[in-house]
């Protein structure tokens, strides 16, 4: 079956995306869950161990606290409270920490350090899986056993004010609640006032037991202007005041005889030096945890806060409130909290915690008897029984104390090892689905690679032996084999596989698809080998057609090198460095090509000699030296032919690569990304600081004007006007939001959400897109000037995208967009066309540029750098679909714009070489599938790596999203080619 290259590549990409989806489903493990009844009950609790006596005490010890107030400050970093500035930031809290009856800890949050998984961790005590990040935007109801449910069941009355994520997670548990939406990141006063306004009346009342406050303002300040912003301190002082108010009221309410209160100050996660969060750097992970209660011993001075896990808080609170620990909790009781209680109670608490952990371990680990922790716990339980016996006999000697201390130590050790064993369980993967996904991806990649000679041939037709494969015997045998393997795996494995839970029809389709691909693969491989054997017999050397230029060597080596670099976590973290480096080298290599064309074309000797292949660098450098030095010596000649357009073009062409290099150098100072050097100051921060607002305004205006001039030349008149108005709208949107100023605007003007302005721009975007689509459709019908209409239509769609991106990009990122357009224009005009680079080379260059621009705009391989505030441009409230679409668009703006420019460019090229579109599509598919397939294998091999959750998994999500983007573009390219073929037929 012969199909066109573009259709072939798009089909492969679609199938690969499905394979990746299957892999992802297997890779992101479902969190550790107990398989027993869904909630812990009081009646299920074990009795107090006692050797040889009747079981007497199955009750819980008395609760330690009557009322608990949890004050959660979003993105509260540990050093905001405990650091050197802590005394100035939160004076009252610091005073309590240093002199009051309080315990302070550094609580480590597990990555992903995003709000919703952290709330889940703080209430259930479990460590939510990575996939919860994706769910962060639409939180479903939390059905797992959790602290709040337990409290509610025990008759406690809960009040909640703050981030409405809680209300969505726990819809019916609060006696009273007021949720505030967290999505208007630029609002950092209203969100907190919404919480504080209820405080006075609530604190006066006595009808609640648990009060939860979630303050969002600090997080928003972090996102907008970073942890060192001048806004941070006033906000922290405000939080300190709130804490003072609560503490004062709790102290005044305290009465003799009743149980004490507990006030908890904590953060859900920290913030990085750039103000974002999501990753696993220390400032993001370390949060303060301050427990204040008259039940604790008074401090005499500042002690260095100890380190605990964030998940240790829920079991501690549960035991403190006399509730059962929720079932899936992996945390341990914080021993300091129960320090002042009698030894019997302390042992009892630890026993309960240990029992819960050992139950969880039994449910989630197949070989739980071999776990050290379980054994340690059993020993501790036994000696606990011995201690109880001594105790009940009334022994009060020193022996009792010593034995008790020993039991305590044994319990703590057991808890530690059980908790860490449970932590390891998180890395449990659904290997079957992963392998199946991997196999599909690899088969398709091999098919893609084997088809290369045909796909890149002049005909751009790929011959796929589908029918022979489907009718062959091996196909049926393979189907049978795979189906039996499936049955075997699904019946034998105790763990649940995603594939096994699929319906039989789907599984059979997958099995048939996989075996068909394998058959096709084998037959293509044999055909290739046979033709490889035949060709040398016919002609002397077939390899002459494959001679590579220095540029080709660089492009291939760069692609391969980048793929290999993904194996090291540092290279994944600092991937932008790889791309900047490769892009630089590419520009230098192009420069060398340009110089060669313009300086040496005529006097290239035709002698036969060996050439040194890897001279890319020195040649270009020597060339540049020549260029630099000759610039000084040539002016007389220049002035002679100054009016000659050919000579002017030549100098412009020579100037293009250095200009590109300079642009790239400037852009990399704009956004410092990655991990190691992310804290360094960059231009973006400088521009965003309030003193430099005028500079930013000027820069943004300049960029918008430049964008207009770069884009307008190939648009129709109507689109030109729409574009100009749209760009004006972008500026007024930025002014409305408060990023930039109008020269005539007074600084005191209040900041709005800019909804009207943004919608104004959206109208023009839609208008331009519509006019572009109309031109495209008309080009199908029109007999004359069809190709001109088509290229104009494509360009208009492109300019619509540019306008949309200009609206979504932050003001300081507009130069990136501007440089992108400038480089595209210059390169298309002077380099790609003039130097006759073929479609494959151009595609690879576009891809590299797209990748580099992904990082130029401030992205990284960390979830934290995704700018979610973009999802609210022009929206009054959170609407899921447009928010996700806008966020994805602005994140992938760089690759998208370059890929779309590629479509425009190849379309214009296809008049000269009709197969350009097909070749481009194939190269795009190949460029995406090679690193993706390699990365899938790498991630599988490194699945027990220390950084798997913090570094490799986010990258996997980015890769998958990028694959989706490339698939869309491949489909678009093949549609373009289809249209071209249709137009060519009659």
């Amino acid at each position, binding site marked *: 079956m012969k199909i066109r290259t573009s259709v072939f590549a798009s089909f492969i990409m679609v199938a690969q995306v499905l394979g990746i989806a299957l892999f992802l489903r297997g890779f992101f493990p479902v969190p550790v869950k107990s398989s027993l009844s869904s909630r812990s009950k009081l009646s299920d609790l074990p009795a107090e161990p006692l050797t040889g006596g009747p079981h007497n005490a199955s009750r819980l010890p008395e609760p330690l606290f009557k009322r608990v107030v949890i004050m959660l400050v979003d993105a509260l970093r540990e050093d905001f409270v405990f650091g050197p500035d802590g005394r100035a930031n939160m004076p009252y809290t610091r005073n309590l920490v240093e002199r009051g009856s309080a315990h302070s800890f550094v609580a480590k949050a597990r990555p992903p350090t995003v709000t919703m998984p952290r709330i889940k961790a703080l209430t259930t005590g479990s460590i939510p899986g990575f996939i919860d990040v994706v769910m962060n935007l639409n939180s479903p109801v939390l059905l797992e056993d959790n602290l709040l449910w337990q409290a509610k069941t025990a008759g406690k009355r809960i009040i909640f004010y703050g981030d409405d994520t809680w209300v969505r997670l726990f819809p019916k548990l609060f006696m009273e609640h007021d949720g505030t939406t967290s999505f208007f990141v630029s609002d950092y006063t209203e969100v907190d006032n919404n919480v504080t306004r209820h405080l006075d009346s609530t604190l006066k009342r006595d009808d609640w037991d648990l009060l939860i406050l979630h303050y969002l303002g600090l997080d928003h300040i972090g996102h907008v202007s970073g942890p060192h912003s001048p806004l941070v301190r006033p906000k922290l002082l405000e939080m300190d005041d709130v804490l003072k108010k609560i503490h004062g009221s709790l102290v005044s309410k305290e009465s003799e005889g009743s149980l004490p209160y507990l006030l908890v100050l904590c953060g859900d996660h920290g913030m990085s030096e750039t103000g974002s969060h999501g990753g696993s750097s220390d400032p993001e992970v370390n949060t303060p945890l301050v427990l204040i209660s008259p039940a604790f011993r008074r401090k005499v001075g500042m002690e260095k806060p100890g380190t605990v896990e964030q998940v240790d808080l829920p079991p501690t609170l549960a035991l403190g409130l006399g509730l059962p620990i929720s079932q899936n909790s992996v945390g341990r009781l914080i021993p300091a909290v129960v320090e002042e209680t009698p030894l019997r109670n302390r042992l009892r608490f630890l026993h309960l915690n240990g029992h819960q952990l050992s139950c969880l371990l039994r449910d989630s680990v197949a070989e739980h008897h071999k776990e050290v922790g379980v054994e340690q716990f059993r020993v501790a339980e036994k000696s606990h029984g011995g201690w109880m016996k001594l105790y009940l006999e009334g022994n009060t000697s020193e022996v009792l104390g010593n034995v008790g201390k020993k039991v305590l130590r044994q319990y703590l050790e057991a808890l530690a090892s059980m908790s860490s064993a449970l932590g390891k369980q998180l890395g449990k993967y659904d290997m079957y689905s992963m392998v199946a996904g991997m196999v599909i991806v690899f088969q398709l990649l091999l098919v893609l690679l084997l088809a290369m000679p045909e796909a890149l041939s002049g005909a751009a037709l790929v011959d796929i032996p589908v029918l022979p494969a489907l009718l062959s015997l091996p196909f049926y045998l393979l189907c049978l084999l795979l189906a039996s393997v499936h049955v075997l795996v699904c019946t034998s494995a105790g763990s649940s596989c995603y594939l096994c839970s699929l319906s039989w029809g789907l599984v059979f389709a997958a099995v048939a698809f996989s075996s068909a691909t394998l058959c096709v693969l084998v037959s293509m491989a044999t055909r290739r080998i046979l033709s490889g054997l035949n060709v040398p017999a016919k002609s002397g050397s077939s390899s002459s057609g494959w001679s590579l230029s220095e540029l080709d060597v660089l492009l291939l080596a760069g692609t391969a090198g980048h793929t290999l670099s993904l194996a090291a976590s540092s*290279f994944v973290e*600092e991937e932008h460095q790889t791309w900047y480096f490769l892009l630089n080298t590419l520009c230098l290599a192009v420069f060398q090509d340009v110089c060669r064309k313009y300086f040496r074309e005529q006097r290239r*000797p035709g002698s036969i*000699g060996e050439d040194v292949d890897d001279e890319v660098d*020195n040649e270009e450098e020597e060339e540049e*030296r020549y260029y*630099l*030095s000759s610039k000084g010596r040539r002016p007389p000649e220049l002035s002679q032919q100054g009016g000659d357009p050919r000579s002017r073009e030549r100098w412009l062409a020579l100037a293009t690569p250095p200009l590109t290099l300079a642009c790239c*150098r400037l852009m990399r100072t704009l956004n410092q990304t*990655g991990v190691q050097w992310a804290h360094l100051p960059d231009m973006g921060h400088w521009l965003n600081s309030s003193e430099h607002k005028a500079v930013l305004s000027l820069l943004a205006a300049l960029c918008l004007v430049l964008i207009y001039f770069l884009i307008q030349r190939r648009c129709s008149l109507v689109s030109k006007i729409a574009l100009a108005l749209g760009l004006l709208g972008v500026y007024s949107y930025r002014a409305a939001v408060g990023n930039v100023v109008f020269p005539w605007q007074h600084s005191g003007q209040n900041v709005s959400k800019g909804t009207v302005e943004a919608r104004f721009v959206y109208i023009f975007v839609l208008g331009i897109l519509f006019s572009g689509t109309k031109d495209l459709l008309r080009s199908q019908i029109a007999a004359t000037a069809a190709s001109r209409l088509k290229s104009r239509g494509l360009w208009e769609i492109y300019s619509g995208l540019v306008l949309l991106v200009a609206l979504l990009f932050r003001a300081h990122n507009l130069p990136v967009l501007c440089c992108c357009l400038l480089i595209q224009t210059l390169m298309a005009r002077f380099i790609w066309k003039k130097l006759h680079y073929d479609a494959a080379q151009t595609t690879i260059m576009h891809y590299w540029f797209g990748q580099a621009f992904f990082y130029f705009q401030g992205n990284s391989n960390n979830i934290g750098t995704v700018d979610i505030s973009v999802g609210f441009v022009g929206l009054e409230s959170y609407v899921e679909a447009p928010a996700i679409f806008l966020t994805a668009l602005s994140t992938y703006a760089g690759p998208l714009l370059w890929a779309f420019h590629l479509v425009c460019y190849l379309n214009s090229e296809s008049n000269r070489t009709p197969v350009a579109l097909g070749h481009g599509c194939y190269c795009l598919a190949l460029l995406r599938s090679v690193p993706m397939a390699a990365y899938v294998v790498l991630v599988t091999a490194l699945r027990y790596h220390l950084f798997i959750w913090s570094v490799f998994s986010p990258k996997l999500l980015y890769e998958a999203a990028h694959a989706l983007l490339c698939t869309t573009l491949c489909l678009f390219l093949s549609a373009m080619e289809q249209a071209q073929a249709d137009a060519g037929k009659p």
Partner: protein
Amino acid sequence: MWDHEIKAMASSHAIIASCIFMATVVPAVFIPGFSVYGTHLLWLYCVTAAVSVVTVSVFWLLGVSQPTKKITLSYKLSRLVRSCLYLLLSCLFYHTVVVLYGAPLIESALETFSLAVLLTSLTTLRCLCVLGPNVQAWIRVFSRHGAMSVWDTSLQITVACSVIGAWLGAFPIPLDWDRPWQVWPVSCSLGSVIGYLTGLVAAPAWIHFHRKQLTYKCK
């Protein structure tokens, strides 16, 4: 065919290589605390100086440089001035390229410039010694089939090796191993010196094994 020249080349390369080795070892005797990582810039200057002196003297003794037609003093002087100018330009050029590759603009300008000086001494100086301050000749040698003698080929190989060495040397910088050689510009200068040494070894060997295929146009 050119056995004599290959031998001369091999011995001169051996001298240069041993001199780099000496520049690494000898100062350690006189200067306390001298090491490649610890006092990197010092080592870099030692190597630069040693390579420059030895390259100039070896090529001057060998007389590889193209025979000059008139040997007046003013001509010699102008050649010298132009050579110095070229060296300076080359330093600036390398500095620019390294900055374009992402070296900090202001902070470690001295380190970057030292690297540029080292690269100049490894590449440009040799070009000047072999070809003289003659831009046309440089372009000829560094175009695809432009080598006209064994020395041209060896020049191509060593220059390519040093530059590629420096290029490869930049790769380990982002790794978070915190090794002393990951400090800017240690890995790059080490890379270029190692590349240069490789080039010194590879050039005579390559020419020796490919002498059958090598054909040069007459001068």
